[in-house]
Structures are given as structure tokens and as C-alpha cells.
């Protein structure tokens, strides 16, 4: 439903702006406005997704615009979860503008979408397809939060090491907090990614008997998976700066997965 999505976009923009203002001015009042409008935006966004689902009669993760909008939605959830656990409002400075941008792009992309016959989830194990995509989008949202935490870690660590205490020093949460956010969301993301890949493989083999399609999205997903596996496995040795750089690299791979899917085409076409 378009009006709902527009309304959600407006609320997200307000939330993003106030989150940035709260960060720059360190005012709690801005944080409250940001949280309130984020809540309103999320409600409208959820309504838009449900109405789409009911009206179109298919799970709202088919078209590119739906996928982007859904990613924004999962990102809000991931941000809210991180916030409830760590009270690191500064995360919003990176994630909320991204949420707003995703919903904006989704609004634009909506015009030019059409259903691809190849994506029609008929046949056996069709119920697996929504699970596959939902899991993966939640995984990517978790990776984005991990990325935001990693960037915050690197900025803060740099200031502590160089002893140049600029604007970030007084505004970012503690190193151990962002380190913790980064590693927790990377672990959560990794678990979801694993499950998402497994369900994808099962669905694909049930549908066409093939597990692997030499598709760019599959390659990137695999590399991402290996990278996060490494990150989690070597967690103890690579705590801190190295882990943060891996968090950034993981996000780059997530971006490649999306961009690759759009530009290179293949089995996992999102249009």
C-alpha cells in the first residue's frame, strides 16, 4: 500500500534526522523524538507490508522493491534489538539514514517491477522459499548493525590510539560495548545466514534438483559465510580492531551480494 509506505518513509526520515541531531548535540530530547517517529514509521511500514501481502496474494519478498523495503524493515528490528540490549543510540546515526534510504529506493523501484515467471514459487517445498529469503534478509540486517558497530569501534579506537580526541570521543559508546554489539550481531547474522543458505539449497534441490547454480549471489553468499565463520572462529585472537575490519569487509560482501544480483543477473534475479 503506497500511502503507508510514503508515511513510513517520512517518519523514518524524521527519525534519522533526529538521531543525527541527538548525536551531534547530545540532547536526550532528540533521541526521544527519534524513537517515537521510528516507532510510528515501523508501524506504518509493517502495515504496508501486510497490506501488500494480502492484496497481491504472495509473500512480499518477490520483487526488488519488496526485498529492499523488507530489508529496511528487518534493519529497524535489528536496530531496536541492539538498542534495547546496549543503549547505544549512536548506532542510529548509521542505520536510520540507511533505513530511510532503503524505503526511499523501494518507493522508486516500485514503479518498474514486474513478476518474473522463473521466480514463481510453485512446485514442491514452495513454503521454504519465504523462509529462505526472510532468514537471509534478517541476516543481512544483523550484518549491517555489525558494520555500524565496527565503524564506531574503528573511529573510537583510532582516537584512543592517536590520542586525538575529537568529536567522536565524547559521543560514541565505549569500545567494549561496540565490540560486543559487533560480535553479537555477527554471530546472530551468521546463524541466520547459515539457515538461510541451507533452506535455499533444500528448496532449490526440491524444486529443480540442483543445489548450485553458479550464480553471483550464491558466490557472494558463500564468501560472506566463510568470512563470518572465520571472524567468529578467531573471535578471541581477533578481538577489537581486526574483528572490526572484518565486520566492515563482511558488509562490503553483503553489498556485493545485492549489487551483484542486480547487475550480473543469473538464477537469483531480483527485479
Amino acid at each position: 500500500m503506497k500511502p503507508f509506505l510514503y508515511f513510513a518513509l517520512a517518519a523514518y526520515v524524521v527519525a534519522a534526522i533526529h538521531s543525527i541531531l541527538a548525536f551531534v548535540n547530545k540532547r536526550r530530547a532528540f533521541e526521544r523524538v527519534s524513537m517515537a517517529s521510528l516507532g510510528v514509521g515501523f508501524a506504518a511500514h509493517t502495515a504496508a507490508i501486510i497490506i501488500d501481502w494480502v492484496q497481491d496474494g504472495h509473500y512480499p519478498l518477490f520483487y526488488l522493491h519488496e526485498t529492499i523495503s523488507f530489508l529496511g524493515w528487518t534493519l529497524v528490528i535489528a536496530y531496536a534489538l541492539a538498542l534495547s540490549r546496549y543503549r547505544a543510540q549512536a548506532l542510529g546515526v548509521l542505520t536510520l539514514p540507511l533505513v530511510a534510504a532503503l524505503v526511499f529506493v523501494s518507493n522508486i523501484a516500485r514503479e518498474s517491477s514486474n513478476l518474473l515467471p522463473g521466480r514463481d514459487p510453485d512446485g514442491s517445498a514452495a513454503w521454504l522459499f519465504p523462509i529462505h529469503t526472510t532468514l537471509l534478509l534478517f541476516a543481512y540486517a544483523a550484518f549491517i548493525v555489525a558494520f555500524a558497530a565496527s565503524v564506531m569501534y574503528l573511529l573510537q579506537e583510532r582516537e584512543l590510539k592517536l590520542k586525538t580526541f575529537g568529536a567522536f570521543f565524547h559521543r560514541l559508546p565505549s569500545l567494549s560495548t561496540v565490540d560486543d554489539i559487533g560480535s553479537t550481531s555477527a554471530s546472530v547474522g551468521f546463524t541466520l545466514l547459515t539457515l538461510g543458505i541451507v533452506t535455499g539449497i533444500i528448496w532449490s534441490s526440491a524444486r529443480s534438483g540442483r543445489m548450485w547454480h553458479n550464480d553471483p549471489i550464491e558466490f557472494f553468499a558463500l564468501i560472506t559465510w566463510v568470512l563470518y565463520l572465520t571472524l567468529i572462529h578467531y573471535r578471541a585472537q581477533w578481538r577489537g580492531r581486526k574483528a572490526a575490519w572484518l565486520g566492515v569487509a563482511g558488509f562490503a560482501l553483503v553489498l556485493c551480494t545485492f549489487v551483484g544480483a542486480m547487475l550480473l543477473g543469473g538464477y537469483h534475479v531480483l527485479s
Partner: protein
Amino acid sequence: MSIILVGLNHKTAPVEVRERLAFTDDACAESLHALVDGEIIREGLIVSTCNRVEILTATGNERGAEATSRVSDFLSEMRHVPGAMFSPHLYTHSDSNAVRHVFRVASSLDSMVVGEPQILGQVRHAYSLAVAAGTAGRIMHRLVHSALRVAKRVRTETGIAASAVSISFTAVELGRKIFGSLKGATVLLVGAGEMAELAALHLANAGASRILVANRTERAAHILADKFGGEAVDFQNLTAHLAEADIVICSTAATGYVITPEMAGAAREARRNRPIFIIDISVPRNVDPAVGKLDNLFVFDVDDLEAVIASNIREREREAERAESIVESEVLQFDQALRNLDIGPTVGALRTRLQGIADEEYKRQRARLGALTPEQERAVEHLLKSTVNKISHPLIHRMRRSYDTGEADNIRAWRESFGIEE
């Protein structure tokens, strides 16, 4: 009524001048009596700290200039200092400027270290001295209470006092930046020293639960450990204890490096890369600067801590700008409240109004009286004037009472009943 403030501070006067003018508590009480004569100066309060001497007075309307010179003479007499010595350093503020100055001083915006908390207590103390001496009246009560409230607002609504400006608090602040909470943190003291002990004390207050003390002389280690309820540990086995510590405070008299990159690296590995925050307050330094280049090891020497403090002071100054706007709006409010209370103009306006009515009626009826001798004419005018005065006298008396008891509502009601504009 008028508020006059005469004073000097660390910005306008060198310490040689400030120390000559400073008042002890005893001198303060005595001097307040000498200052407040009830005629020119009706109320008085003296704030005297090592950074400032401020004489705050309330005077009658239009008596500002007299009051200023009186305060200056008073300073010279009381402190036995020739006026020429301090008068170039004096500043004088009147009315809303004086109010603004008092608010800024109480909020620590005028302090050497912006946001330092002592000044508020000093203002409160100055006020209690004035109350005890009986020289604080209605204006001082209002002004000081407002100033304390403004100071509280500034403290809670801005970050003016949020960041640390001393070495030991900076250690706590940096510890929090690295570990989040210091609850349950382990602190290792290597060597002893006043500053190290102070830092350890602040860290313990911030939640650090375990304190280890390593010293070349075991006895000294035990003494210090007992002081903090900590444990004395073996100095020779420093690497092992480094691995236990989240925060290390180094202050030995050693001339070489006590903590080397090898030791720090081994300790870090033993604690699975959890960060170690090392504070090196010894000169010459005890921690090899190369230690700070290792990941997850954060080393701060005295110069680094000073740099943090400098940055915090800049941050406080940025916050101070926000505080200034709070002060500004409070000054406006205070002015308004004071004007509402000020009786002088109302009394004048009331007299003029009643006299105007009498004059007008006389003018209308004058023709009917026919020719009057100049004496008769004067008698009628006198009759009217004294009637007006007799009527207005109890009113004005009642108004002054309302004013004295601070009943602004009553004064407003009087004004409205007689159609007097503020």
C-alpha cells in the same frame, strides 16, 4: 530599586591584588555590617574565593552611581588597600547585567575551569554569611535562590561538568570509554605515589572491585594493599599479573621501562585479547611507548592525559555556550519578576492618578465658585492635595507591605484597580 555588583576575578586582576582584597569569613560578617547602611545600600552579600571578590548590593532606585563609589571606598577601607591599586581591575554591573553575572558565576561559567563544582558551594556559603549578618533581604533571597536554581539547570541540562578535568577522573573516564562499565574491573598498581593512589581510589569508587599492588619493596606493597583492601602481588612476576588486570597504573621511580612490549604482548595473549588500559604517570616513563602500538593495549602517559583534559575543557566550553542561553532566559525571567515587585513606579503612578482626578474635578467646578482671592485659591488646592494624600496614604502603606512580603499578586491587583500600567 537597583542591583549593583562590584568585583574583580581571575580574569581582571592578578593574584597579588586578589589576595589583598579577599575576605575571611569573620571579616566578611563584620564588613557586611559596615557595608549595608540602610540608606544607599540596603542589602549586601560578599563572595570571596581565591579567584574572585564580588560585592553584591541592592540599592534604592537611581542610587547606582553612589552605591558603586561607596563599595569601592568600602573595599579600600576594609582591606586597607589604596583604591588606585585595585580600581583598574574592578568591574561594575548593574541590574540585569549584575543578575546575569551572578547567574554565570553560580553556574561556574565564569570560573577558571568552566564547570567546576566548588563555586556553587562558595556562593551558598556567602549567602549564609549574609543571612547570618542580617544583610540579605528580599532581593538577595530572590537573587541567590534563582542563581542556585539556574546553576542546577545548567548542570543537568548541559554537559558542562560531564567530562573529567583532573588526572584521576580522566583515568576513570578513559577506563569507561574502553570497558564501558568499570564494575568488577581489576586494577593493578605498579609502584606507589600520591597520584596513583588517588586514581586507584577513583577507579574503586567507579566500581573496580579488585586492586592488586606490585612494588619492588614488598612491605610497601602490603601497606598500600591494606589501604585499599587489595592484594599485594609479586613484582618479579609482573607479566602474570598484567594478564589479570584490566587497568594498570604505573608510577615507579624506575629509570628504565618496567613494562615492555614482550610482557604486554604475553599478558594480552593470556587474557585472550581483552584490552588492557595502562596509565603511566611516572616520569621518566615506565611503559615502553611501543606497548601502545599493540592492538587492544591502550597506553596513556602524563602528557596524553593532559591532552585528554585539554580536549575535555574544550568540550566544556562548547557546552558552556548552551549554558549561556539558559542563563540569558533566566535573566529575562528574573528581571520580569523583579519589575513586578518593584513598588516605586506604582506608588508614583497612583499618586499622579489620584491627583489628576482631583485636579480635573476642580477645573470643571471652578467656574461655579466665582471669583476667589489668591489665598482662597491656594486653600482649595491645598484641600484637594491633602485629601488625596489622606486617601492614598493607607493604600500606599498597604502596598509597601505587600512589596516587603513579596506578594506580587497583590501589587498587580492594586495596579489593575487603579488602571496603572506596568
